């Protein structure tokens, strides 16, 4: 016996670590990434790799030379930021724009506030919104589905996607309605709900396949990386809100299933809104946060200027998190009501 340790209890500590949680999220993103490469080919791969590598690079450089901290790139959080940034942009985005996005995400949204744990806004979304505002053309021209395929057999499979020639279903609906087209005729030109569920439609590279994202979400809930509160409350709110609008006027409003399968609802609800750092601490708070995201998303989609509103909705709700944490505290055991 050389030395015995003295420290206060507890003496055994759990096996969870930040690294284990972060790599769990990365594993959960793999199915969506796979679908993305399958549908968009080499472009998706190039954008994703660029985003991840530049995020790691920027975090390392800023931590080492500006903040003079011990670089923390091995914790996996920069990889997640890179992945999520890539998932939120078109797969044919010029790579130099991707690098700018990574710089804004890591440099401005994350490291300015002191790195992991201190940023008020979701870094990947800040990067994405920065790009959307700065490069509106590149950020909203989606790839022609067959142009960048890896192999011919995928090309053959994807021919029925040609009809889109670039626009997302939500954009088609928005423009169509503005022109005076009826919802029924617009819907006829779309892939079926089942096809959308698998991801056969235009969109940002990681947001298209609902099934892949849901599989990732279930994996994270099973591994206790996230809880169900935020994803379920967000998706359910979008579903109920758009459902009400659809019941009131089905000719002007798309059906609720269309709404939850398109745009970034799945990606946002499962992977972006659940970001630990920028989401509330109590279950009550998480549910309110999710409902807020759902309502804002629908408001932007239906009445706003953009066809898609998840990114903005999450960023706006991020700003409310300190307030939510202050007023929606967990219920205390044996709480005595003040008279």
């Amino acid at each position, binding site marked *: *016996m050389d030395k015995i340790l003295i420290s206060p209890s507890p003496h055994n500590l759990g096996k969870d670590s*930040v690294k284990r*949680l972060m790599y769990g999220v990365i594993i959960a993103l793999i199915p969506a990434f796979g679908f993305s490469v399958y549908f968009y080919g080499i472009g998706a791969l190039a954008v994703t790799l660029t985003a991840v590598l530049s995020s790691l690079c920027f975090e390392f450089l800023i931590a080492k030379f500006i903040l003079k901290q011990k670089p923390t790139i091995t914790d996996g959080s920069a990889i997640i930021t890179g992945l999520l940034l890539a998932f939120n942009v078109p797969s044919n985005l010029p790579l130099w724009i991707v690098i700018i996005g990574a710089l804004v995400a890591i440099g401005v949204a994350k490291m300015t506030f002191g790195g992991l744990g201190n940023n008020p806004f979701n870094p990947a979304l800040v990067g994405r919104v920065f790009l959307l505002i700065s490069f509106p053309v590149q950020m909203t021209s989606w790839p022609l589905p067959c142009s960048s395929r890896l192999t011919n057999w995928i090309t053959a499979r994807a021919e029925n996607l040609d009809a889109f020639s670039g626009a997302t279903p939500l954009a088609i609906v928005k423009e169509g309605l503005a022109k005076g087209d009826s919802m029924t005729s617009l819907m006829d030109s779309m892939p079926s709900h089942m096809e959308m569920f698998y991801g056969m439609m235009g969109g940002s590279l990681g947001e298209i396949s609902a099934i892949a994202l849901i599989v990732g979400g279930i994996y994270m809930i099973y591994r206790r990386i996230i809880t169900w509160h935020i994803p379920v409350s967000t998706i359910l709110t979008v579903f109920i809100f758009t459902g009400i609008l659809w019941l009131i006027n089905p000719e002007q409003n798309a059906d609720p299933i269309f709404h939850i399968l398109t745009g970034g609802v799945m990606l946002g609800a499962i992977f972006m809104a659940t970001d630990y750092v920028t989401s509330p601490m109590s279950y009550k708070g998480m549910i309110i946060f999710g409902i807020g995201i759902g309502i804002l998303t629908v408001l932007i989609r239906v009445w706003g200027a953009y066809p898609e509103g998840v990114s903005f909705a999450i960023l706006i709700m991020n700003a409310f998190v300190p307030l939510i944490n202050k007023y929606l505290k967990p219920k205390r055991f*044996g709480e005595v009501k003040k008279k």
Partner: protein
Amino acid sequence: MPKTFPKGGVHPPENKLTATHKIEVLPSPKIAYIPIIQHIGAPSTVIVKKGEDVKVGQIIAKSSGFVSANIHASVSGKILKIDETLDTSGYKRMAVHIEVAGDEWMPEIDNSTTLIKDINISAEEIISKVAQAGIVGLGGATFPSHVKLSVPKGKKCEYFIINGVECEPYLTSDHRLMLEKSEEIMVGIQIIMKALNVSKAIIGIENNKPDAIEKMTQLANSYPGVTVEALKVQYPQGGEKQLIKAVINREVPSGGLPIDVGCVVHNVGTIIAIYEAVQKNKPLFQSVVTVTGKSVKKPSNFLVRVGTPIRDLIEAAGGLPEDTGKIINGGPMMGKAVYSLDVPVAKGTSAVLILPQDEVKRRPMSSCIRCAKCVSACPMGLEPYLLMVAAEMENWERTEAENVMDCIECGSCSYTCPADRPLLDYIRLGKSTVSKIIRARKN
């Protein structure tokens, strides 16, 4: 679905290595060091002198108030001196040192194993016998038991809840007692029910002790009013407030006591001590101690005389392993690390746990990632991350406003934190500072 408490909690690896090991009697030490404070409350007053001869069970220090407890000699022999000795919390405390000679018991003590079922005394006499015998809560808090048996005026006790949960990993002393002293526990329950004037008693036992659940359920059939509740394994279910919530779904109000919701809770070890005091005139001077750890050669459950240095217990369990990193008095979640093998066993000692070096190193902490795992793990519905920040910034007003005093120090937050932040360390600091502030305010 087995019942449990609904809020928070964690499930650490159980590691009940000694669950099947019978309780063995450990011989008396050469010298017993009996601390004169082994309970919560006022230290007892020593009434013996150096050089005096004492017998087993003889009172050597008298209770010095309502919340205090008598202390008895656990061995017979000559008093060497009354001097400072390390106690389990690492402080030096006064202790009576007795050089052991023979094993002569006080004549009134019935040292046989015969079960005496008939209870022939009144509630008042029971309480006074429990006070005489110096019995304290053996579940960890060591609160004098006679205080808990005296229901304050204006309150009514509806349920007597028996704590057989033993939710701390590694510990098996209560488990073994439920198997080996089942009848004594049942009679003890009847005694306490009489003292409290209650008709319902519920024994809470976690599902990882199926043999104890079976045995107690079987026996409960022949004791009216007693039932057994099998509970889902969940730490810290052995906490009084969590157990009451799990068993009868009542919440002890913040700052309140179990009696505020019509309950009194006693641990199975305490119940046996009460049985022995009332039926056998035997004061509390022994303790069942689990000596355990993955590297310990012979992990065991011992019946030990109070005052035996833990060195003797470790020797009897095969000696101190080579890779020892930490020696803990108690379990891994709430026990106290000790730095000397001279620390004597006290009434409330339930385990000596030896953890190997590779399990005890704290990992360096990283930034809080606000994952909210500590918030979901807190059984009291507090926000540990926030309490830690408040205590770190020495913002005691905020620490108090965030209800630091509700913390039961179970350690679920620190256990669950993926960033390895020492949440409970700071919360304890906050708690002790805030309680000083509250006391100063009252005066």
